[in-house]
């Protein structure tokens, strides 16, 4: 049975107990060697989910441009949301991981095996939620859903620490029933609440959220896609391009070969110091090395001089051993 979180953002008070509990249980060090750098632009001091912060409380301060206050903070709203890995039903990170380091556990959570991860970073770019991050140890890190605690019948540290039960842990199906009931309650009060993480979001999120504004307001994508969605189309375009290149190459070489018919067919001599001249290369070196050699002997005789042959591709004078070694090796039948 799938385990997960139901995070009700309407009762989050931004206390960050979840962040602290996560750091404590998972022994995650404070950033920058213990000197945490404050973001300086809100009560959010860690900025985003990353290799060291597997829980991240977002502070969304909604303040109208016209701040005429008629009554206490009328028109203003302060949203808080404790973000975490969603342990997606169709997980992009798990899909692309080339090593098999990312697995789905018996609790249906998505887990990175640290002893297998080789730091290729495929998962980092594959996560549409910006959850997975590279650590300074050269490996990818994210929330484990406290896999070690679950194996011992405990609930994850963040859920246990949450003082308002904004974070609830349990069976996903049971949590969803609870969440739907809560949505109904809020809507009855005129609050446009909804669940982010039903089947329409990458097959469903095992860790889903109750939100009261558009997903983008919370820094969540409204329509996240699996990274592999466009890969087949991408390969198809590559294949078409390869076909087009083959065709244009063929046309260029055919056309120029026809133009070449009247030209002198011998290429220039290679520069000095390039080693012994090679023999024929070609799958079917129809002329064969021996034939080329005979042609050159005939050519030299016809010239009646010792001048170097115009074609430099064959050493005319060489030992039998050398000749054998320089025979074409593929496609030429033995005589």
């Amino acid at each position, binding site marked *: 049975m799938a385990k997960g979180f139901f995070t009700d953002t309407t009762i989050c008070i931004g206390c960050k107990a979840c962040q602290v509990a996560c750091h404590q249980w998972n022994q995650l060090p404070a950033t920058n060697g213990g000197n945490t750098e404050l973001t300086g*632009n809100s009560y959010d001091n860690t*900025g*985003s989910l990353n290799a060291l912060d597997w829980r*991240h409380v977002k502070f969304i*301060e*909604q*303040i*109208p*441009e016209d*701040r*005429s*206050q008629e009554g206490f903070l009328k028109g203003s709203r302060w949203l808080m949301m404790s*973000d975490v890995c969603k342990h997606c039903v169709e997980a992009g990170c798990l*899909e692309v991981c080339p*090593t*098999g380091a990312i697995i789905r556990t018996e609790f249906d959570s998505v887990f990175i*095996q640290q*002893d297998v*991860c*080789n*730091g290729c970073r495929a998962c*980092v*770019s594959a996560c*549409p939620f*910006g959850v*997975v991050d*590279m650590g300074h140890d050269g*490996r*990818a890190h994210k929330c484990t859903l406290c896999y070690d605690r679950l194996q011992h019948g405990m609930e994850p540290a963040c859920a246990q620490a949450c003082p308002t039960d904004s974070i609830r842990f349990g069976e996903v199906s049971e949590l969803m029933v609870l969440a739907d009931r809560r949505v109904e309650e809020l809507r009855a009060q005129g609050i446009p609440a909804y669940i982010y993480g039903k089947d329409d979001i990458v097959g469903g999120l095992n860790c889903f959220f109750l939100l009261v504004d558009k997903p983008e*307001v919370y820094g969540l*994508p409204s329509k996240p*896609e699996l*990274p592999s*969605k*466009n890969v087949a189309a991408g390969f198809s*375009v590559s294949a*078409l*391009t*390869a076909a087009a*290149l083959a065709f244009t190459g063929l046309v*260029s*070489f055919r056309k*120029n070969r026809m133009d070449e018919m009247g*030209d002198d*067919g011998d*290429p*220039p001599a290679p*520069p000095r110091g390039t*080693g012994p001249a*090679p*023999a024929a*290369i070609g*799958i*079917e070196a129809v002329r064969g090395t021996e034939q080329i050699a005979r042609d050159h002997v005939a050519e030299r005789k016809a010239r009646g001089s010792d001048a170097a042959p115009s074609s430099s*591709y064959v050493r005319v004078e060489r030992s039998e051993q050398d000749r*054998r*070694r*320089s025979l*074409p090796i593929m*496609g030429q039948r033995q005589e």
Partner: protein
Amino acid sequence: MTLALTLSGPQWTVNPGAGVPHAPGWGWYVILYFFLGGLAGGCFAIAAALDLRRNPAPRDRDVTRLGYLLSFPGVIGCGVLLLLDLGRPPRFWHLFIASERPPVPIFKYWSPISFGAWTLTGFGLFAFVAFVRVLIESGRLRWSPALRAADAVRRLPRTVAVIWTVIGILFALALAGYTGVLMIGTAHPVWHNAIPLGGLFLASSASTSYALLIILLLRRGYGHRDPMVRRLSEADRWAIALECLLLALVLVPLGGLARPLITGAFGALFWIGVVLAGLLLPLLLDRLRAGADPGRRDRIRAGLVLAGGLLLRFVFIMAPQWPEVRPWHL
């Protein structure tokens, strides 16, 4: 008393980095790998295509030899760059073998990195065989076991050799073309939606490979009017034209998402370095009169194509990662 205060700016604030997919931190190792992989695959494909001819002319053999000689060191370079790019290089073997059940191989064809790792390895085999063959045929390798193996291979029917070469070409094209698909297979909106990127990088690989072969042929004493140089230049022009088309097919559908690529400092590099110097100028130079030193013109043209190919990869990899990843990041 009513407090009236008007603030400019957004109605809500949230840290801009939150929720946005993290940049993978690809830097120069990846840029050079993409560039070198394109050259290795492209040179091999051109060499092998000429190798398939029934009656290879001396020029064909020269280009075949050159292409084969270039592709294997290129593959080695790619392997080294890929290793260096891993967070834990000694664990590279996890890309090939499932750690839970050794020695069962792990291959996820739907994962571009897994696909690429196997493609590079497979192509390495073909590039190695071709490289050794050139060394043997040129008399540079005289190791008797290799010579005996070469003798045995020589006795194989032509069909086998053709099939081997065609498979090698497919691997070469896969290596040159998958790198763009690797970027499509991410959650980053710019890369994820640039569907023709694999084709663009493949066309660029072909173009840069033609350019590299032209430079090397000119260095070997070929004249600018030599038929082989003319053929390669003609094919290069087609590849550049295809690249222009694919570039438009990438940028236009991206719309506003293309902003990081075409504006700011990266935009300047893109328009001046990639489009003007790397694509339009080489096409224009072909139309200009040769002048006193036509060989020099051809070398400059080919150099521009190569530089443009490298810059294309630099802009497409680095611009969407800015400012999370700095342009000098390895």
